[in-house]
């Protein structure tokens, strides 16, 4: 792979991309995206994305609405066709290593009135393990129960999913992804519309994943909590604006480049960041 900046990427101030230690080992990178462009109906939504996810870190994908955060994740797991470029997980294309990649879609993409309960949903994460034509046995239900417990939802196992709160629903879908025991997790806005208890539960799980040496890329919209929850950040606005450790990349200049000065809160956050950095 080449590290030369692709023509068209926003200029300069990309402190994170320069000393990329993991970029030297792209084969081992949990997620490596090369020159990816994605278009909907011939209108490009992502341009020339060139990105290697740092292994064993929690990375936030941040950007304004319509900046292609969801598309980035979906294109990585082949749910959206790529116009060009390629994606590798641990050096292999996605369809060879599906079991190592856990994908948590945005909430609300399913029919909540569907006749399934929380446990049924988690068991779905084990279907690949169960295999074709085999019925779901007790063993797998117990296994699924274990993951529901991990997200603090075991007492709601028998609830039909529409009778759960938004946060509880999110936790069930997280449990489904966890049950897969993947090595890299791609989560699309897991913190949207959830209660405080769920937010805490998700943060704990992210930390547990990191402690177990797993990698997570999380689309996140709340700039305030980015430095608190994540190690790395990927700033995105149709192109990659910057990427790297929070301390280097999550700067007012980069954020302004990402959001185009549209965010009033930006300067405040930037200010807080400078204060924090000054303190540490």
């Amino acid at each position: 792979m080449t590290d030369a900046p692709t023509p068209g990427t926003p200029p300069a101030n990309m402190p994170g991309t320069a000393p990329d230690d993991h970029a030297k080992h792209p084969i081992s990178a949990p997620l490596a995206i090369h020159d990816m462009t994605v278009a909907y109906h011939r209108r490009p939504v992502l341009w020339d994305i060139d990105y290697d996810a740092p292994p064993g870190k929690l990375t936030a994908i941040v950007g304004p609405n319509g900046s292609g955060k969801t598309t980035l994740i979906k294109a990585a797991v082949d749910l959206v066709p790529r116009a060009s470029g390629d994606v590798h997980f641990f050096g292999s294309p996605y369809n060879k290593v599906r079991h190592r990649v856990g994908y948590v879609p945005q909430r609300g993409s399913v029919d909540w009135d569907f006749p399934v309960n929380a446990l049924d949903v988690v068991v779905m994460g084990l279907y690949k393990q169960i295999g074709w034509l085999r019925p779901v046995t007790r063993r797998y239900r117990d296994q699924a129960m274990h993951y529901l417990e991990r997200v603090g939802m075991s007492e709601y196992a028998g609830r039909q999913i529409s009778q759960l709160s938004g946060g509880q629903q999110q936790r069930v879908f997280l449990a489904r992804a966890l049950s897969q025991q993947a090595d890299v997790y791609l989560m699309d806005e897991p913190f949207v519309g959830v209660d405080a208890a769920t937010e805490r539960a998700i943060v704990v799980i992210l930390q547990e994943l990191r402690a177990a040496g797993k990698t997570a890329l999380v689309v996140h919209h709340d700039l305030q909590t980015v430095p608190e929850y994540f190690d790395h950040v990927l700033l995105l606005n149709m192109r990659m604006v910057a990427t790297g450790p929070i301390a280097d990349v999550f700067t007012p200049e980069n954020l302004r480049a990402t959001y185009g000065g549209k965010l009033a809160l930006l300067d405040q956050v930037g200010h807080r960041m400078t204060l924090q950095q000054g303190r540490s």
Partner: protein
Amino acid sequence: MSPAHRSAPGPPSPVRRRRWLPAALLLLLATPVWASAGRQPHGHDHGNTPNVTDRTSGTSLSDTRIRWPGWRKVVDTLLMRQYNTRTVLLGTILLGIGAGTVGTFMLLRKRSLVGDVVSHASLPGIALAFLCVELAQPGKGRSLPTLLLGALLAGLTGVLCTIGIRRFSRIKEDTAMAIVLSVFFGIGIALFTVIQKLPTGQVAGLQQFIYGQTASMTSADVRLIGMVSILVIAVSCALFKEFGLLCFDEEFARSHGWPTVWLDLVLMALVVCIAITGLQSVGLLLVVAMLIIPPAAARFWTERLGTMTVIAAVLGGLSAWLGGIVSSLFARFSAGAVIVLAGTLFFMVSLTLGTRRGLAPRLLRQWSNNRRIGRHDLLRTLYEMLESQLDTFPADSSVDPLCLTRLTSDEILSRRSWSRSRLAGLLNNAVGDGLLDASDGGWKMTATGAEEARLVARNHRLWETYLILHADIAPNHVDRDADLIEHVLEPDLISQLLEAVSERYPQMEMPPSPHPLEPGT
């Protein structure tokens, strides 16, 4: 039945085809003539013949009498003593079970109308198949396998057209379906007119596909239907987990590497199989009902996919059985219509009584909720009225001070804006629940009533205090908000509330009201 009859159908002999049966259908359409076909000996009766003996007594369109079958025939039919009735019923029931099973997935996949497209689109296929065979071998056009093959191909073409229209134009799926099913059906009807003009044309034999005619099935037909249904049921059971995943979360299935396109195609193929084999017994106009009504009814009883599928299959089988029985007892009812009506009956029952989503249980829950809220409001009002006097009672009294004072309706009405009749209803309920005792013109709380009143007032105040402390709601607004929520507070929530407000009222038995309790509020 004669012993001769019982011994007659040892090997599966083809059900004797009766020329007058398709004709009977024509009669309903246009011709007021009974084709008086040769009568069969009674013992070989078909199961669908009404009352063979009085068939000659002038049946016409104006004759609307329903001929009631004799009890003997009823018993014979119910016990399925006759071989023909038995085979026909068995085939229809299997079809009903298959349709209910596959229909569940179609309903959940929100593809309810695909069955309708398939069945309507199959009509030109039937006509074309008939024409082709008829032109090659005049008089042999009405062979079921050929006709069904034509139906199958045309039905598939219809589905492909729907997909094509949706894909290559900006027309939405429902519009595409409406276009395809009406255009194909129109072509089919036009071809039927052509067939009618053929010298050998027996359009009567084809019209059964539109309205369905269980009676015209031969045992070979039944065997075909049975085999297809069993195949469909078996495939649905084997792929149950995969179909469920596909219907629930296609994107997740795809990202996990399940071949969703192929699964979708298999599911579609099952629907096409059921719709096409159902043509003969239920008719293309009504076959969609067999696919959709049983699953829709089943949904009211359960929140689990497996249970729903089983219930849908059972309801499908039951309606098919009922339809078959009724139409064999009363020849004027076509099986298809009765099957659909039976299904509708089950649907209506499920809609009202269904334990999970039915109307009656929901109304019952609402009613008992309202009653509970009314009871809480009354008890809290009474408590607040008596609260100021509590201190004047000696603390060591063996009787609960709340139970000592008598309150009249007028006193209560001065505190709440209830109508007199509403209050009377609330008081009545409370007396019935053993919370109040009527005593000369007024009411006193019982011991249970006093206990519950304390609990209700406490919950109300805890919640009010919580809102003031943690949600920045003004004390004079808090009463109404608390009113909405206090009735659904569960014990674990209350202990959390206690913790949250402990800074203001540490370990207090009964917190004071955070706002003045004025009369009339």
